[in-house]
């Protein structure tokens, strides 16, 4: 598998969003049946991942965190190898050692995933420093959550990137939740983007449930990083539609708020737009969904077939 690049066609974006949705829902179903370790799904946040990543070039690098499947799939990850990793199988991207929480795929430029909240922010500065000092073209895109913005590393990382002029696009997926804590309990700030200005960093906010808007803003932000060599903070406002870590009954989520959030689900919204402008009809959409589902079923078959790593793997890859 290699990096997926996107052309201008909106259908591609929708297709990828459906693949992510189908993948996540299938993974969650497997986990509900137990036997398969849990994951943090990105249901509801597909437009963030796809919108930003569709704006990237082949050289750009991505750092992500515990909620990574959307980013990986959008960048072209094979769903079979991804699920194999979640299931701890040998053919996973990390030989099964990572499991769901720290999956990276160097071949796709998805580097150094950390499940320590905020960890990706510090690592991203280092990757940005390499890009800069080794005169590489790619921008470093660092996805993180609104929760990560509570960690001190957020402050340290933005400051360092700004003062050193590192080519990092910080993308905060503000999904209103930080595991089992609502964002309103953790900060008085209305959003994350307001922290950019004191660092002398440019920033923008975008409706994260509108994939085309996300892509457009991400394009601009990437251009800004590329031309200035300086970092940029992009806040993508969205909502975590499923629980934190599967299985999760969301009993602690306000039902009205959740219903409202579902009514903004980025998939039907984008479908409606493409339908309205005549680019897609119901059949085409149904076909897209079916294709995503069957790709995911093949992935499940692949992952289930993949053996567990051998016992020798317990102590390999510790030292270079």
């Amino acid at each position, binding site marked *: 598998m290699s990096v997926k690049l996107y052309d201008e066609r909106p259908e591609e974006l929708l297709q990828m969003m459906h693949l992510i949705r189908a993948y996540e829902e299938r993974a969650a179903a497997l986990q509900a049946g137990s036997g398969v*370790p849990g994951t943090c799904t990105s249901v509801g946040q597909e437009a963030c991942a796809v919108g930003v990543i569709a704006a990237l070039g082949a050289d750009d690098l991505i750092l992500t965190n515990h909620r990574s499947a959307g980013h990986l799939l959008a960048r072209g990850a094979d769903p079979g190898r991804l699920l194999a990793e979640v299931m701890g199988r040998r053919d996973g991207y990390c030989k*099964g*050692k990572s*499991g769901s929480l720290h999956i990276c795929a160097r071949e796709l430029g998805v580097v150094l995933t950390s*499940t*320590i909240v905020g960890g990706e922010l510090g690592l991203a500065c280092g990757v940005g420093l390499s890009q800069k000092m080794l005169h590489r073209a790619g921008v470093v895109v660092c996805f993180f959550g609104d929760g990560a913005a509570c*960690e001190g590393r957020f402050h340290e990382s933005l400051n360092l990137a700004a003062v050193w002029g590192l080519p990092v696009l910080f993308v905060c997926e503000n999904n209103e939740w930080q595991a089992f*804590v609502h964002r309103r309990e*953790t900060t008085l700030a209305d959003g994350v983007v307001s922290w950019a200005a004191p660092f002398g960093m440019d920033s923008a906010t975008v409706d994260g449930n509108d994939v085309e808007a996300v892509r457009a803003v991400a394009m601009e932000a990437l251009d800004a990083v590329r031309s200035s060599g300086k970092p940029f903070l992009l806040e993508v406002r969205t909502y975590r539609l499923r629980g934190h870590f599967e299985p999760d009954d969301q009993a602690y989520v306000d039902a009205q708020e959740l219903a409202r959030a579902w009514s903004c689900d980025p998939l039907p919204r984008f479908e409606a737009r493409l339908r309205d402008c005549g680019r897609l009809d119901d059949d085409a959409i149904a076909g897209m969904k079916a294709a995503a589902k069957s790709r995911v079923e093949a992935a499940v078959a692949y992952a289930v077939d993949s053996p*567990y790593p051998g016992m020798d793997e317990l102590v390999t890859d510790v030292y270079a």
Partner: protein
Amino acid sequence: MAQITVQEAIDQALAEEMTRDPRVLLMGEGVATKRHALVEAFGGERVRNTPLAEGIIAGTAAGAAATGLRPVADLLFAPFLCYAMDELVNSAGKLRYLSGGQFSFPLVAIAMTGAGWCVGAQHNHNIEAWFVHSPGLKVVMPGCVADFKGLLKAAIRDDNPVLFFVDIGLVFAAGDVPEGEYLVPIGEAAVRRSGQDISLISYAKTVAVCEDAARTLAEQGISAEVIDLRTLKPLDEASILASVRKTGRAVIVHEASRTCGVGAEIAAIVAEKAFTALKAPVLRLSGPDAPAPASFPLEQAFVPQAAAVVDTARRLCA
């Protein structure tokens, strides 16, 4: 006696101590969401969800402890303690000493670790030895339900900072807890099984591994004593030495990696203070010196197994 789980034992301990002492409060990322009954009973002031930032949780706990409160901070998974090392080690552990005794730090920091949930090395890392190596702290890591309750209550009452490690593999384990007020003193090991030929010394989930091994060994004519350390700092040297002086042989078993682990300390104590009683080398069985993998069979293999304990013990007794 009531059969409850470790999680329930922790809840009971918290509820009882919060009832007893109004200065006790609980804070952490999601504690108010997950422990709704405590919020109902004690209110949101005393059961606080925090921002997602372990450093400030621990720092706040340290500052509050020094000035009149008795915080219990749930820091979730042990590797997240890496964000709170300054607060735990440099502040809570040292500022009593550095201030010439002006302050004390009665706080408890809770963290989970160990194999069981396939979450990998950034959620599962047995770093209890770091804190054993650090001055001014106490370290507790129970192996059975009753001890979870009794030791957590004791930790909350202790006037020093206590690291309270919860073995993930035990969270849903059930067991008996004595009715009524039940305290387990910090600093006392327990003899889980008495024996003559060899001492199996362990803590947390590998105590059960040693008990399994001891049963097998008994069938093979080897009488193994099983010691559950329960507290890792201060270590109950007297119990360890009494056992090894009796049996003359020791195997130390834990999931944490070997180098500079708690097993190293115990082996060193034994090699110094029970030297003349020793009939055989002191052996350690531990997790490998590698990060914990997420993959289920690898994660299971990370933990020392009863069969290996049996083999090791038999070799020593041969």
